[in-house]
């Protein structure tokens, strides 16, 4: 007797499937036999004739406009000599000789492109002058692997004046490909390296186009299979006023340092100058290494945007923080006075004032106006480091402003906890005294200070500074429009804010340390700062010191006093006292600014008529 399994009755149907499968399989084998064995030679010839050349067309990057619509970044054509790597018809050394390059240079370029599809050409010479194009073009007929391509590259009409804001573009590095920040890129692509170009790369870069041609075995085009047109990148409209920017750059002259101009009511950055600068037109493109290395090693690091990528001691500007926190904590009022004799001992150490002979009896207004250290030593000591640090942090220090640029630093507001954690040391009471005048470990960026001064000017709103106002599609449609963003509130009562503002008014208008910023017709309010670079006797003459040991000169201000429309923060490294360099410079800049605004208003009226 045959044993019946539980699945016995299904075997017929299973067998049916098996037969069906084998029939299909035989059909497939026949088909592959037909294609590969019977028609194989025929298809082989087709494949030999049928080479495809995919040429990518780089997309022009988007334009960048300033707040008044002036073009501050555009594109121009660059003529490149490119090499098609497959089916080389001549040796590398012949190509090198023809192009006046060394074979090593060519090999280096080709190696860099090793992970790019072989059908993509390699750039051997970048941005050759038009005369050379005319010379090369007729001779290419003997060099079938070479071609001259036209590539849109950047042109920055403002050159070094705006470079720290705009950045520049050059060839993507392997590290950048690996970082994942830049999507859909391959070796050889030009990408934004810093500034706006990097931050908004994904909007600016556009979409590459592609021409797919069938070419014969000599590389001649037989037919076009597909053409995808490149799409240019989006247009960015910035908050920058290029006219003001240029003016500030000129006025700043040979100084090393930075200037930030900001609208206190919105957070728009009107100008951001950093010096020394460099011309981005010279280091963009495919082979900027040499120029770039030169800049890397140049004195005073021109590549750095000093307004966000460097931090400094705020010096006496920090007295604004001390004043606001002391008032709000009710440690002082406007009538509180301290006597300044030029020197005072705290915790058995002498602390000096900037006026060796002393200021005499000082109240808040006078102490701000004359920047009396003794007054603020006492006040800071009374408020205490914990409170000072908490207020400073609330005012936006010790954290990035998240301005739409790259590599912003966050600075430092020290407190006992920080010191214990990082330096494994207890907090010394004397350090609080140093912090009270913005020395010690306190480090800020210019843009943080600009946001802080704006908050004082606008009644207490801490705004996020920004540079990109709008992103527009190529047909002018607005895709994104920046709105003022409040990061926090100072948390200071209007009365207390007014007391400090009045002090700032006095700094400029009442024979204070910032008298140099006084201008005709508009009231300026500000605060000077002189940041010590090395610990020394304050009374020693700056002129006797080598340049790199001299004090940093600071000034920050807003104007007009009653209806503030601009905030300026100026830092001149090792230039001496704030009152001597930065404040007068602020005056000059503000004078130009208001002149410019008046001219614009007049022009507007004239245009309307």
């Amino acid at each position, binding site marked *: *007797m045959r*044993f019946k*399994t*539980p*699945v016995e*009755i*299904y*075997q017929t*149907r*299973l067998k*049916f*499937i*098996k037969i069906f*499968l*084998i029939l*299909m*399989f035989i*059909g*497939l*084998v026949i*088909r*592959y*036999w037909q*294609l*590969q*064995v019977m*028609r*194989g*030679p*025929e*298809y*082989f010839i*087709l*494949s*030999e004739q*049928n*080479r*495809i050349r*995919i040429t990518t067309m780089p997309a022009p990057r988007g334009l960048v406009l300033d707040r008044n619509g002036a073009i501050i970044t555009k594109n121009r054509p660059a003529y490149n000599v490119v090499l098609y790597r*497959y089916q080389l018809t001549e040796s590398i050394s012949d190509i090198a000789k023809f192009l006046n390059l060394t074979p090593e240079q060519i090999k280096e370029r080709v190696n860099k492109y*090793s*992970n*790019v*599809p*072989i*059908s993509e050409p390699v750039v051997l010479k970048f941005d050759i002058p038009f005369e050379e194009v005319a010379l090369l073009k007729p001779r290419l007929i003997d060099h079938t692997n070479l071609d001259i391509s036209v590539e849109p590259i950047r042109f920055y009409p403002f050159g070094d004046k705006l470079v720290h804001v705009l950045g520049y573009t050059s060839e993507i590095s392997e590290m950048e490909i690996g970082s994942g920040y830049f999507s859909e890129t*391959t070796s050889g692509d030009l990408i934004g390296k810093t500034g706006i170009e990097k931050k908004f790369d994904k909007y600016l870069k556009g979409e590459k186009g592609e021409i797919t041609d069938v070419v014969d075995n000599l590389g001649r085009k037989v037919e076009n*299979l*597909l053409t995808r047109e490149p799409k240019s990148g989006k247009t960015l409209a910035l908050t920058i006023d290029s006219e003001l920017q240029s003016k500030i750059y000129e006025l700043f002259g040979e100084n090393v340092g930075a200037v930030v101009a900001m609208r206190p009511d919105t957070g728009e950055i009107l100008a951001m100058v950093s010096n020394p600068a460099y011309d981005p037109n010279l280091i963009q493109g495919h082979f900027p290494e040499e120029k770039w290395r030169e800049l890397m090693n140049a004195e005073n690091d021109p590549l750095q945007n000093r307004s966000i990528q460097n931090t400094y001691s705020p010096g006496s500007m920090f007295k604004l923080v001390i004043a606001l926190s002391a008032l709000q904590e009710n440690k002082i009022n406007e009538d509180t006075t301290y006597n300044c004799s030029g020197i005072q001992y705290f915790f058995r150490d002498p602390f000096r004032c900037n006026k060796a002979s002393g200021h005499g009896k000082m109240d808040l207004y006078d102490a701000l106006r004359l920047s009396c250290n003794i007054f603020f030593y006492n006040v800071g000591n009374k408020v205490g480091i914990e409170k000072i640090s908490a207020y400073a942090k609330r005012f936006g220090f010790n954290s990035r402003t998240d301005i739409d640029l790259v590599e912003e630093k966050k600075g430092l507001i020290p407190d006992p906890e920080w010191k214990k954690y990082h330096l494994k040391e207890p907090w010394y009471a004397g350090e609080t005294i140093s912090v009270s005048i913005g020395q010690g470990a306190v480090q800020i960026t210019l843009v943080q200070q600009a946001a802080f001064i704006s908050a004082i000017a606008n009644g207490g709103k801490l705004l996020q500074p920004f540079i990109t106002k709008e992103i527009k599609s190529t047909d002018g449609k607005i895709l994104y429009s920046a709105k003022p963003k409040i990061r926090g509130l100072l948390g200071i009562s209007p009365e207390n804010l007014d007391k400090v503002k009045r002090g700032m008014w006095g700094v400029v208008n009442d024979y204070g340390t910032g008298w140099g910023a006084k201008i005709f017709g508009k009231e300026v309010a500000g605060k000077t700062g002189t940041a010590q670079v090395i610990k020394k006797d304050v009374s020693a003459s700056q002129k006797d010191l080598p340049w790199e040991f001299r004090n940093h000169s600071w000034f920050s201000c807003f104007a007009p006093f009653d209806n503030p429309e601009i905030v300026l923060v100026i830092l001149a490294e090792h230039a001496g006292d704030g009152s001597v360099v930065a404040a007068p410079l602020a005056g000059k800049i503000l004078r130009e600014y208001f002149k410019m605004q008046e001219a614009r208003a007049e022009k507007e009226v004239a245009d309307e008529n």
Partner: protein
Amino acid sequence: MKIKLERREFYYPMLIMTVAITLLGIAFIYSTTHDSAYSDLFIRQIFWMLFGLAAIYFLNRIDYSVVARYSPIFYLAIIVMLVFLLMVGQLIGGAKSWFYFRWISLQPSEFGKIVFILFLSKHIAELGKAQLSFKDIIKPSVYLALPLGLIALQPDLGSAITYIPIFFGIIFVGRLRLRVIISLLLLFLIGVFFSWSYVLKPYQKQRITTFLEPEKNKKEAGYQIYQSKIAIGSGGVWGKGYLKGTQSQLKFVPEQHTDFIFSVLAEETGFVGVLATLGLYLGLIISFLNTAATARDKLGLLIATGFASLFAFHFLINVGMVVGLMPTTGIPLPLFSYGGSSLLSFYIGIGIILSIRSRRFVYL
């Protein structure tokens, strides 16, 4: 009287064929991507294979009836995920079919196939009928329609239709009455006519017309098949050699690391390589069907049948597609094409088949 035994040994030939095909696939993923921006894809595929092997190891040790017992929960979970994807999924390549977790992205529709096999088999087996009537396949049709509809809405028609062979494989071997089969075939023909006129989107129609006359529209959709055929044909008997396929290496053939990968193998290894690879596939599918034939119970039989149908369908459509015998549907070559979810779900399926195999009856 014969003695029956439930055997518990591991069936190595099936595992070896599986791994051989996967490694072959990895070699050709490397061949097509090694000089592109995606040169690390083959490493990812290796990782997915290792995951898959771990899955096989565990599933072989678990009784498949236990896995099937939980299939309603899995089924429900898949349906929920598919609905969720439709609501919040991002469009990738025109369809909402992916879940993203850091560097891993998962396609629920792939795992859904295995779940559907288990769920449907369990249902049919529990009916306990020697023959299936029309009434018996009403519920299963609903079970089919749910995931199929949701995946078609993504819209990923290619993945959706792969659920159909599972359904028919299982109810066919589950002994659906012949007269029902014949009436269904008639209904299908009417359905084709209807959907051509009213349902199909233009791009889907284009794919079908392309399939019918590829030489006519060489530039657009016919281009893929035309180029693929040149690649395969030019491979000849012995092929152009590994990494030496001019068509594939010059990126003539599109989507060559996924749907068109077999054309690369055909170009570089020729008819000889094709024959050997097709042989491996045939051997593997036959071993699935043999597993079905010797299964311990009806559940095992139906699961193995469903999986064999799914696998064979993928294989036939893909290998037929690259030579223009089947329409371009975007169905990957099982175990071979690049794709983590697809590879892992096939490994899970094979793990379950191995579990059925190792618990089979033998006649002494």
